[in-house]
């Protein structure tokens, strides 16, 4: 059984290798249009076929797990929420690496949690790969692009199926690399490569903490295997330190306060990448790791309190920022931060089940929203909602799918978001955390703001007067051209397929709905949406964000966090760097150059003796010889 897991992880990896090496072979050198097209076609096959196989294997694994009896030996202590759904679990160790102190074991494991997330990852990755065929049709670098997506998927699957913290960390880091490569796909534009570097550096900042958290846990437990770590008897102080350090990595990868700034900038990448990062791979990893190590986090209540505060600030701030953005993708990016904060809040409130449920539904509807936004952008040729409007008649399929997505985002029944968000809010309502009132207030407020920004984006994009105009020339780096039609079929299919789970996945949790809190949050969401609708109704030409009044600029700039970071971190570092350069140029280089100049001027004195008279030299030689002889005789 473990070989299936190995295959699931390795298939996308093999796809990445094949796509990178084989797409242009054997005509690698010539970049004619026909060759580019042939390479893109071959790369698409290399990308889609293995991921489809991985999907089938994952589904098979899930069905096996659903039918298998729980085995006490290979499961975690305590009752997990997934035990009822997918009780079967398997674990296999490939090899042990003796490091001298704590051994590293190459262990993979598949249990209910990893299979659930694994299905999400593979489905979204497949949808993104198929979608990219249409979206990136004329991009000459499509082979490397799809290969990196495959590598990204493989890394996320490695994180999901890892049975050892070090193995998990390897996948974690490869994801960081892939996000850098993919966000900077259109690197010709300087802003895009800057965004890629920013994403890489900010997540790396968190990863440092994450690595040391792993070390702390591993050394305290005497093993890096997740089973051993969770069953080990670790003192509370160590546990708090370790989980706090892990939380830094979680904040970096899942874009939580204070490391959230990279995610909106990551919109510089192609839209399918945003869908992949936001729905399935990168940001889901942070929530997943907390759920994976949840028993350890439960033993460290202060960490959960910190997580609660971070989540409360993040969800409300990001939702307000989303309300004021004009770029459709940035609206969705801030909404991702906000929704991830919901999951973090669910975890902090003590319900990993609610958080993972929301992670799954969010993965479905956010991927749907991003792919739909990509189709809209493809159609309009601009990211800005100012250039959209009245699109519901010209792109009816995208409109219907995105309506489902927005409904799920707002939490309107019967879309999936309603059930999962209700689960999170009910968990917060019933938690005993000291931060509970704060968290609950923030969560309810955010529900209202979420309704408002989702409504605003929906209205601004699909309703009102059409502001679409054909752009004379697409700006460099964006391959979108206005063509006045619905997107190609390869883009519509993934959108349509993803709309199904976005609409129906919530019914998996229909039996556990807390109708009281669901009603409250539904009313709040409708209230937020209604306010926006009233403002929009008054003046359909104008942006409903004007209701924010003087706060609008602050929200649009995401409360000046980027500016603050620039002033507090970036500028002093730059100043320090300039100082170092000056020191290097003037002190170090100056010393070297000065040594040379000193030698030259000293040698000037010696050169005075070079008069060209050979007999003078011989005289000097003899005098020296005599001196040495006399010295040898006298001193020896």
């Amino acid at each position, binding site marked *: 059984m473990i070989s299936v897991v190995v295959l699931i992880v390795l298939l996308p990896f093999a796809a990445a290798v094949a796509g990178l090496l084989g797409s242009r072979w054997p005509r690698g050198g010539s970049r004619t249009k026909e060759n580019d097209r042939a390479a893109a076609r071959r790369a698409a096959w290399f990308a889609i076929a293995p991921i489809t196989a991985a999907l089938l294997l994952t589904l098979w694994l899930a069905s096996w797990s659903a039918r298998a009896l729980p085995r006490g030996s290979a499961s975690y202590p305590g009752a997990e929420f997934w035990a009822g759904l997918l009780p079967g679990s398997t674990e296999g160790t490939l090899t042990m690496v003796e490091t001298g102190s704590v051994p590293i074991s190459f262990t993979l494991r598949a249990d209910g949690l990893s299979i659930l997330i694994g299905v999400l990852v593979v489905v979204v990755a497949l949808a993104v790969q198929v979608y990219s065929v249409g979206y990136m049709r004329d991009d000459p670098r499509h082979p490397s692009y799809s290969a990196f997506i495959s590598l990204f998927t493989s890394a996320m699957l490695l994180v999901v199926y890892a049975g050892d913290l070090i193995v998990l960390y390897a996948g974690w880091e490869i994801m960081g690399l892939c996000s850098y490569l993919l966000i900077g796909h259109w690197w010709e534009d300087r802003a895009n490569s800057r965004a890629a570097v920013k994403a890489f550096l900010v997540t790396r900042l968190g990863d440092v903490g994450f690595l040391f958290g792993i070390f702390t846990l591993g050394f305290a437990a005497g093993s890096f295997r997740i089973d051993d770590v969770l069953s080990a008897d670790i003192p509370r102080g160590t546990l708090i330190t370790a989980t706090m350090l892990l939380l830094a990595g979680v904040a970096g990868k899942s874009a939580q306060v204070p490391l959230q700034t990279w995610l909106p900038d990551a919109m510089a990448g192609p839209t399918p990448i945003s869908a992949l990062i936001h729905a399935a791979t990168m940001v889901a990893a942070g929530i997943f790791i907390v759920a994976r190590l949840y028993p350890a986090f439960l033993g460290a209540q202060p960490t959960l309190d910190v997580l609660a505060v971070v989540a409360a600030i993040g969800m409300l701030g990001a939702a307000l920022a989303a309300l004021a953005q004009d770029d459709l993708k940035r609206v969705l990016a801030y909404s991702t931060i906000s929704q991830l904060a919901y999951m973090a809040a669910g975890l902090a409130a003590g319900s990993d089940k609610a958080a993972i449920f929301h992670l799954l539904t969010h993965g479905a509807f956010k991927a749907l929203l991003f792919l739909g936004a990509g189709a809209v952008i493809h159609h309009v040729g601009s990211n800005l909602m100012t250039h959209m409007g009245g699109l519901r008649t010209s792109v009816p399929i995208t409109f219907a799918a995105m309506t489902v997505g927005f409904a799920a985002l707002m939490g309107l029944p019967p879309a999936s978001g309603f059930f999962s968000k209700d689960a999170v809010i009910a968990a917060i309502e019933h938690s005993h955390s000291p931060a509970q009132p704060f968290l609950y207030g923030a969560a309810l407020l955010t529900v209202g703001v979420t309704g408002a920004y989702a409504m605003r984006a929906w209205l601004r994009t699909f309703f009102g007067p059409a502001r679409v105009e054909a752009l004379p020339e697409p700006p460099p780096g964006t391959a979108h051209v206005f063509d006045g039609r619905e997107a190609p079929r390869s883009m519509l299919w993934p959108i349509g397929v993803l709309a199904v789970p976005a609409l129906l996945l919530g019914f998996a949790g229909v039996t556990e709905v807390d109708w009281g809190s669901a009603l409250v949050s539904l009313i709040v969401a409708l209230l937020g949406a209604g306010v926006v609708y009233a403002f929009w109704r008054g003046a359909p030409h104008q942006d409903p964000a004007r209701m924010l009044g003087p706060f609008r600029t602050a929200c649009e700039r995401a409360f000046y966090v980027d500016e603050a970071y620039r002033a507090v971190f970036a500028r002093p570092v730059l100043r320090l760097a300039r100082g170092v350069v000056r020191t290097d140029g003037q002190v170090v280089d100056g010393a070297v150059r000065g040594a040379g100049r000193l030698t030259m001027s000293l040698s000037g004195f010696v*050169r005075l003796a*070079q*008069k*060209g*008279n050979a*007999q003078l030299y*011989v005289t000097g030689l*003899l005098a020296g010889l005599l001196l040495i002889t006399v010295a040898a005789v006298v001193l020896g």
Partner: protein
Amino acid sequence: MHIVYPVVVSALLFSIGVYGVLARRNAILVLMSVELMLNAVNLNLVAFDVWLRDRLHGGQVLTLFVIVIAAAEIGLGLAIVLAVYRNRQSIDVDRLRDLSETGASGEAGPPEEPVGVGEDADREARP
């Protein structure tokens, strides 16, 4: 015969050679002085060889070597002197100071030697 006689003779010879090398201006005389020094050494070698009763006669063998090398050296030296004379019409060692440091010899420059055709060619050939 006591060792002191040949040693004194060779020391005198060597001193004459040193004086010649340091003080003579004619290149041929300088070469002759070098020969005197070499022969002083040869005398020493033979004398000590006899005095120490060396069974392998290392001193005498070495003398033969020195004589051979001296012959080669004087051949080479005279050829150089001949070539210099053809170029400059002079074999005055004091005046052959083209390799001097130009800046350093500025204050006590030697009188300009007569400029020959060969010298011009020589100067141009220099990089």
